[in-house]
Every structure is written in C-alpha cells, then in structure tokens.
C-alpha cells in the first residue's frame, strides 16, 4: 500500500458564506451548495476576489472566495 498522502479539507466562500467541498470540486459545486445556480442561469456571473470572471468548471482551493454578481 502506498504511503498515505495528507490533504487539507476545502472550505471556500461564496458571497462571503462558507461552503465545504470535497477535493476536486469546482466552481459549479460551490454554486450548487450555495444555491446560486439559478442566479447563474439568470445571467449573473461568478468572479474571483480580484474581480476576474471564472468558468463554472474552474478549480477551487481551500480559502478561495468567489462572488456571484
């Protein structure tokens, strides 16, 4: 058996609200968790904390902040 590799859990923030996800999950999963997919379907977009738009399949990491607007 391979030696265990340790990973930290992944908590991201959608509109400043915490969302806990499994490793490998993407922007869309955070939006699903936060109930924001309807807003995306309505034409809002998702941005990182520097104001750059993100694709829904974009990767996330622990501590990331994303905003739907």
């Amino acid at each position: 058996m391979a030696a265990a590799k340790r990973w930290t859990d992944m908590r991201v923030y959608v509109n400043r609200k915490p969302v806990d996800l499994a490793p490998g999950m993407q922007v869309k999963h955070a939006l699903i968790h936060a109930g924001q997919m309807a807003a995306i379907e309505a034409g809002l977009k998702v941005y990182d904390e520097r104001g750059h738009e993100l694709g829904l399949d974009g990767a996330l990491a622990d501590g990331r902040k994303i905003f739907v607007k």
Partner: protein
Amino acid sequence: MQGFRIALISLLLIMSPASRGYANQVDLRILYVNDFHGFAEPYQPAGSQAALGGIACLAGAVDRARQKQPSLLLAAGDMIQGNVSANLFQGQSFVDVMNAMKFDAMVVGNHEFDFGPEVLKERMAQANFPFLGANVEGLPSLKPYVIKDLQGIKIAIVGVVTRDTLTTHPRNLGDLKFITPESALRKYLPELKGQADIIVVVSHCGYPEDRELADKIPGLDVIVGGHTHTKLLQPQVVGHTIIVQAWEHAKALGVLDLQVKDGKIVKFQGALQEINPAADRADLQTQEIVARYAGRIGPIIHQVIGETRLDLDAPRVRTGETNLGDFIADVMRQTAGADAAIINSGAIKAGIARGKIEVQDVYTALPYDNYLVAVRLTGAQLKEALEHGVSHLEKASHGFPQVSGLTFTYSRSAPVGSRVKDVTVDGRPLDLNKEYAVATIDFLAAGGSGYTVFGDALKKAGDYANLGGALTSGALTYNDPGTWLRDLVMDAIQARKTIAPKVDGRSQAVD
C-alpha cells in the same frame, strides 16, 4: 585601414550583449489557450444569450494572429478530456486538432491523466508538440521544458501542473510522483537562464498559485496559466512577471505581444479575444477534422454493450423505486465499496427498452457529467437524506431517492420531515449513531437537489488520505472526479453482458 575596420566590428560584436546576435528590438507574440476540455463545437454557456467558442473558429483566429506576427501557440493544460465527443475518442480527436493548429507546447493538466497512463503515453506519441511537466517524476516522455527560437530570441517554455492532480483516481497515476511546482521551477531555472533569453512558464496550477510563483521566484518572465478557468482580460503583473490566462472551453484566444530589446522584455500588451462563432471565420482544416470525428461518433454511440431482458424504467423514477434506479445505485455502491448508495431521480433522464443496450442509451439515461463520491454519514444523517428525498412527493420532484444497500418505508400522508419510517442497511435496522459510507454523485455531495446533509457531513472532514486506491478523509471514503458515472454504468453492463434488474422493494410507500 581595413584592419582597423575589422577590429572595430569585432569590438562592437564583443561589446554587444547579443553574442546571439540580437536585433535592436524584436516583436514577439505568444498565443495561449487553456482548459479546452474537449469542447470542439460552440455552445451556449449557462445564462448566456449566445453560443461561444468552437475550436475551428478559434483556429481561424490563431491563423489570423499568426499572419500579423510570428507567434508561439501554447496550451496550459486540461485540453483533451471532458466533453463527450473528446472522451469517446479518449482525447485522440483533440490531439489531431492541436497538431493541425501547430501548437508549440502544452503542459499536462490534472485531467490529462484521467484516461490512465497508457492512453496519456499514446496521446503524447500522437502529438507533434511536446507535453510538458517539470514537476512530474516517473514519466520519461513528459519533458520538463523545451527551448524555442522566435526571431532570434531563445524562449524557454517550462511546464508545471498542480499537485491537485493527486485527487484523480490513483489508478490513473500509477507510480508517478508530483513535486511542488515551485521546487521544479527552482531546479530548472539556472539551466534555463543559461540557454534562453525569455522564460515562459506554462502552468496548470491556477491563477492564485501563479501569482504566488511569480512572487516567490524571480526570473520568470511570463506565466501562461490554466486550471482555475480565469478570464484575465488583460495581462496581470506580479513583480516582473506577466501572468495571463484565457478562460476555458475554446471561448477565448489569448494574445500577448512582447517587445524584446537586448534579450529582455521592455514592453508588453495583451488581451483576450473572445471567440464568436457567428462572426469569426473558421479554419477549414480544423473544421474538417472536427466534422470527421463527429461523423465517427455514430458508430461509437450505436455500439452494443449488452442486453437487458426487461424494460429499464425511468418514467416513474421521480415517484418510486424503479429497476433502472436500482441498477444504477447498485453500480455506485459496489464501485465505491460503500454501505449504501443514493442517487436523485433527476439524474436519470430516460429509460432503456428491453433488448440490446447501446452506448447512446446510457448517455441518454445519464446525460449529466456526474462522478462518484462516497461520504460518511451517521444513521441520523442518512435518515435525513431520505426524508429530504420524499419531501416533495406531491410534485414528482427530481429529488426522489433511488437507493442501494438499504430499504426504507415512507408515509405520503405524514408531515414533511417525518415521512420516513423503517430503514434498514444491509438488512439491519438503521442505527442513528453509527456511521455509514454512502455513495452518491458529486451533484448531491455538493448539496444539489436540496441534499444539504452531504455537504454538512463534509464539514467534519479533516485531513484526507490516499489509502490503497481512494482519496479518503474522515468524511469522504471515495472520490473519483475523473470518471463519469455513466462510464461506470456502461462498464458494469459490458461486464455482465445481460442484465435483468427487478424492483425488490427497497423503497415502499405505506399509505
């Protein structure tokens, strides 16, 4: 006099920083893309009013950009896997397209490993450009870097990929090791400095990570990024490093123009060009390749993978147990090695008629790109999940649970939240305090369809460990983002050849 002239010319050459023979100023262009994920055709993104992208239109844009300025064309990973058509050919279609577009180099993304190491080696052998991965050890055909000459300027292109790649199923990685991107860049930078004027990192690490690399490692001139699908409309600068990223899915082409003087970048400008299929002229060669592979999809999706002796029922999947729901949930539970499995009825879109089962049938039944996870739930949380599943019976909602490894009864007339009656797991009464590994799809694990209990369970997650084939944590016992559920179902049908699942009373309404 002639001797003086020779001496003067020699002196000027020696004094010139260009033993390589720099012109006074050289204009270079870097074209860049990332995270295609096999999106060959234009598509209408969620919330968008129009279709965007299309690889043939993007190729046309590349052609036009190249005609104006000699360029390098770079890809920052996750190019060949993802979209249905690319997956059906295990990325072969997209490497053909990239060959036609004459890419100069590509870094492997985490999803390039999803087809397994042997397929990745085939794709690398197929490609006319190098696959890069300076921080990946154990795959000799993966180069750390390549040196290109563009208008007399030596450009080192070094590739690094996120260690998040380790979240892919371990079977896809074999004995590969991933050192940190920072370690790899520090390792190779001295030799790159000796060989090249400009250092370009092609990074599949993510935009925040690219900023950190730029901050920590002086001497990186450009970072072409991917992984986070960030739409950087303009190049960003950290220290002296220019950072770019071109969104996703062939919806944009990045153009970075560099003015190089005496081997150094003295000025730059850049922008993203969004690809509009309604306006942008397609490259005909690329269009032909896309059409050729589209024509080959037919025989693949009509391939017979097995047979069912019974109609596999989907129309009633939102109101009660069905044999198709049972079969899919069984595949989930068995694959994940879980105690139970729950999938929401909304994930199952069509039934399969008795008789031969084609690939297309499974795609139609399971059209969403969902992957399998398993989360540790307490018995109380498992019951809560089932309560949620039967909370909208009146509306035939997409949340009704199809299950495996457990049985439950429920009352239609009882108040919402108190409808679930008797629950057994593996034949034993549910223990509210015991923990059970419950397989589900990523959509539900993220709280989709209102199944918040899975997301709540992940809050307890501490460190994750890779143990004998699955990435686990305190709450996560199985996680395979690189394999779609429908592929697992197809594998199961192919393995069994003939199936005849029957409804066996896993969920029963008592009134």
